[in-house]
């Protein structure tokens, strides 16, 4: 690529790289953290990265269907966050801990 990028705009690949970086950080948080809520937040980070990818490709294709799909991802993430946090609250009431290693067995 020629050096003065800023004369012609930002390369689209930079947006996709940002999306990939955020997604991998989300995966890293999901795998390495022990607090259930932080794991859940890493999932939200992954969803955000995917949204960015949708919007970037929607720019490339010149249609706004990617925006609409991103909107649906947001709505589903909202519903999932509500139910997931309610489940976490219930689990906390029973197990009195928020570490996923401790709540890994089905029987108490």
């Amino acid at each position: 690529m020629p050096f003065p990028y800023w004369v012609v705009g930002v390369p689209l690949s930079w947006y996709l790289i940002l999306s990939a970086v955020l997604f991998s950080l989300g995966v890293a948080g999901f795998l390495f953290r022990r607090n259930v809520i932080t794991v859940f937040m890493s999932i939200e980070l992954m969803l955000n990265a995917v949204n960015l990818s949708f919007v970037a490709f929607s720019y490339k294709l010149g249609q706004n269907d990617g925006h609409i799909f991103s909107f649906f991802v947001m709505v589903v993430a909202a519903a999932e966050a509500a139910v997931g946090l309610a489940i976490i609250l219930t689990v906390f009431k029973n197990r009195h801990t928020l570490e996923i290693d401790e709540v890994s067995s089905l029987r108490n």
Partner: protein
Amino acid sequence: MDAVLFLVFAVISVACAVNLVLQRHPIASALSLVGVMGSLAFVYLQLGGEFIAAAQLVVYAGAIMVLFVFVIMLLNEGKERKQKMKLWVRWAGVPLLFAFFALMALIVQAILPPQANVKFGSFTAGNAADIGDKLFTRYLLPFEVTSVLILIAIVGAIVLARKELD
């Protein structure tokens, strides 16, 4: 100028995401995630997605993350204990991550043609009128289905989180 704007918000979002993964207190992670969402809203604005940027602020940063912050404050567990990671994980983790990013960046750059550049303001179909148009004509069925989904989520959350009556 466009590249500078993109780089500023990209660096902020990556820094907040790294902070999310590294912080031990869940509230700090939650606020870092709010930072990620805010900077991503600016990135969406650059890509012409005005409605999506506003929806990101209203729905994600303004409602979902407030829910997270409330639950964290309610449960009030405090910092995580320090974990004992194996030595090779700690020393090889970050360099491997960087190697992975470099590989992905090379692949992505190779696939996309160099003329695929984002000029700010050249995508105009992202405003509310155009999105509403598509949402209520072509994507009407998924729209109604997601409203039923949200209703199910509301009922489920209320049932799960209320006190058990004896």
